[in-house]
């Protein structure tokens, strides 16, 4: 029997984690797995449980995607592939399992049948990019025992930030979708800030293509309910911020600012979307007190006297006011939306723009051309 499958496309600040936790709390007596890609988000989910119900219910297990794959994907039925104990996982940022480089500098990788070298580093830690593939192989070799076991342990699997999954991760999602598990996925295709895999598998779905993947790659008899409305309203961003940020993804339905009383009370004196001259930067920081958002720790222009955060790090967080130190491609895109902005930069820019509740400022000297729609130039009050 195929369990119910659903993906909820969420706008930034729409209360994804709250929704997921509320869904989990509704389930009584049956075991629930909540999994997400990053450790920080895992911590946030746990935190959310404490905020909403004061504890994590006994039937709920929260674990990161990687530890889920090691604990339930690989270890239980690794016996058909290899014997030695897995000592953990090692995060890799490029294709793993390098055998040697040719004289021309071409890398040659260990083949899949060299299991200990293809999947593992010398101290038997599994490479992060190969982990989902290894889990899939364990499932195949054991005649589906891996998925069968998971579906009996966890009748409900809730995946947060599902857009972060790629490559063989998607095969695992597909296998879960085909199983008796009730699969609930929540994510925002606009916020793919972690490039998880360097596998070529499912490359075409790598950048926010999760919905297309579910539509195209699952058999007809495996229905997935695609919900684009439940979490379409941002409780965080003001209407202006919703409008300017949605422009980064014109093909997706634009997010709406929630206009309920609770969301809109206490709206600040200062709100809107601004272009901030570098000359006014220090003054702006002192008067508006925004969070500074930068691409990376080495980005120029940060005022060290005030708090600052990387784009990726800020994901899931909200601030009353933010000021963004844009990268060159982001600046170019602002002046002309037709310029090519790489998917990852686009996602990071979207994340940065949607951190602000009331105001967003972009620190750059604009010049004379007309300002982008929705933005106004910050003028120092005299």
């Amino acid at each position, binding site marked *: 029997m195929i369990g119910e499958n659903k993906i909820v496309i969420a706008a930034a600040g729409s209360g994804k984690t709250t929704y997921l936790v509320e869904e989990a709390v509704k389930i009584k007596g049956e075991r629930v797995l909540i999994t997400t890609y990053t450790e920080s988000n895992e911590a946030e989910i746990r935190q959310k449980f404490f905020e909403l119900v004061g504890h994590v219910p006994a039937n709920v297990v929260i674990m990161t995607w990687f530890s889920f794959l090691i*604990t*339930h994907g690989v*270890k*239980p*039925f*690794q*016996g058909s592939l290899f014997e030695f104990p897995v000592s953990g996982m090692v995060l890799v940022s490029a294709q793993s399992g390098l055998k040697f480089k040719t004289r021309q500098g071409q890398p040659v990788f260990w083949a899949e049948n060299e299991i200990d070298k293809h999947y593992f580093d010398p101290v038997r830690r599994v490479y992060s990019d190969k982990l989902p593939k290894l889990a899939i192989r364990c499932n195949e070799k*054991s005649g589906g025992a891996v998925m069968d076991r998971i579906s009996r*342990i966890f009748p409900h699997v809730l995946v947060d930030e599902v857009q972060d999954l790629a490559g063989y991760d998607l095969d695992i999602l597909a296998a879960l979708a085909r199983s008796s598990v009730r699969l609930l996925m929540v994510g925002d295709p606009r916020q793919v800030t972690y490039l998880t895999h360097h596998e070529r598998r499912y490359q075409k779905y790598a950048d926010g293509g999760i919905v297309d993947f579910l539509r195209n790659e699952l058999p007809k008899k495996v229905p997935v309910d695609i919900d684009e409305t439940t979490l379409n309203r941002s409780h965080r961003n003001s209407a202006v911020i919703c409008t300017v940020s949605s422009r980064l993804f014109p093909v997706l339905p634009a997010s709406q600012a929630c206009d309920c009383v609770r969301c809109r009370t206490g709206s600040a004196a200062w709100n809107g979307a601004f272009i901030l001259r570098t000359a006014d930067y220090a003054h702006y920081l002192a008067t508006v007190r925004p969070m500074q958002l930068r691409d990376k720790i080495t980005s120029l222009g940060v005022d060290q006297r005030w708090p600052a955060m990387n784009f990726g790090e800020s994901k899931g967080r909200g601030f009353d006011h933010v000021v963004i130190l844009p990268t060159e491609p982001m600046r170019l895109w602002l002046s002309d939306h037709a310029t090519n902005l790489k998917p990852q930069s686009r996602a990071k820019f979207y994340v940065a723009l949607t951190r602000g509740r009331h105001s967003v400022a972009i620190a750059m000297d604009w010049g004379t051309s007309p300002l982008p729609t929705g933005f106004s130039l910050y003028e120092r009050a005299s």
Partner: protein
Amino acid sequence: MKIEKVKITNFKCYEGTFTLALNDGLNVIVGANESGKTTILEAIHLALTGLLHGRPLKNDLTSYLFNLVAQNKYVHSLGTASPLPPPAITIELFFSGSSNELAELEGDGNSERAKRSGVVYKIEFDEENYKGPYEELVKAGELTSIPVEYYTTTMRSFARKGVTARNIPIKSALIDSSSTRLQNGSDVYVSRIIRDVLEEKERASISQAHRKLKEAFVANPNLKLINERITQAAKISQKAVSISVDLSSQTAWENSLMTYIDLIPFQYIGKGEQCVIKTKLALSAKKNAEATAVLLEEPENHLSHTRLNELIADLTEKHGQKQIIISTHSSFVANKLGLDHLIVLRSGEVARISELEASDFFKKLAGYDTLRLALAAKAILVEGDSDELVVQRAYMDANEGRLPIQDGIDVISVGTAFLRFLELADALKIPVAVVTDNDGDTTVVEKKYAAFKDSSTVRICFDPVVDTGPLMVKDKPYNYNTLEPKLLKANDRATLNAILGTSATTDDELRIHMRANKTESALAIFNSKTAVTYPDYIQKAIAP
């Protein structure tokens, strides 16, 4: 949820891997002392709880836990060209049942690489932390035992994940005759059993009440006054001296609460009663998500006959869905609990009465003789009482007057059931000698026992010579090939007349007398003051 199979490797008396399949309900493990009954119970309890003798084994590792043969093999290999890796103790429990609680423990992380649910308890060399020191130790060449200081214990599910007793849905209630006490004197096992009987909610409310009790004690105004006085009296330093309950310890309520029976602390009531109460408590646990395996060690030790009967009635009638594993060397217990459930254990060999071809026969038999055979170091099977007496006497004559039983040799009269007993003996590899008549046709006897012709443990003894004669008794030819005429043949009329106190004038007269007075004759021989000569086949049977 049941334990379907236990596999024990290198633990105590089990060299190599010992496998024991268990029934879902009652299991009665019978065996002599030192046959490894208790070790099985200990192993199951250890794998389910991590405890041995009521204490976490990880703090008490010694090389004595390891099988001596395995240890010697390892130590001797160290000086050679092919040293063995440090040996590991492994206890595997395979669970059966389809409950979802078991799914979490499922995987192929077991010695059979099978998709099963279960746990593995291991005592193994801690390679990760002690590789270097171990190498140095081996190089120094002074290793005479297993270096347990470099060992660690692990408890893992078949899914290769570390587990604790809490994660295992099968709880074990060990009821043994030793008394394992907690610091406050209360019995470890009764506390555990009570805790396992309780539901999670009930456990929480006890620990809540316990905490309140502690807090109330600390808040008591009298205590405050007393503490002030102590501080003044102490004057040892500027610091305050005070008494209080132990608030720091993480130990749960079960370590500081005591179990009372009619207001008497549990450990002060009789041992027998303790055993009965623990068993009843363990049997009463009724939970959906958990199952209980009751491990009962030699219940006959402290119980009177009537209490034992009561306990057995509880075990057979009220065990419900629980799995019970009992070790015993009491033939009474084994017999009462039914031979169906009997697992006979003997130096690593296992026989189940229910699997023997002769199982019907043994089930109908009183059971005592079955166990006598199973528990004997060696046995001599004879046909009847008179043979038994003569064989015993023959043994005494050859062994400075010692009865065979004093040397662990049991002489058992089995009537005509030789082959059935041999099946059991063969299954358990019990050394047995069979003393039988040749019935006037050695080929028939040879054919009957053909299966044991080359056996290293079974010795068939009969007279290869067929005697014949003209004597008739009640129109039937006299059988010259039973024990009595063979005895006459080995001795002579005068000797036997003296021993039996008869005055037979012909051999035939003596033959007829002995035929009519079998037992009396045998008794007279058994008590004879003069030496008797025994037929060769008897000598062969008693030979070491």
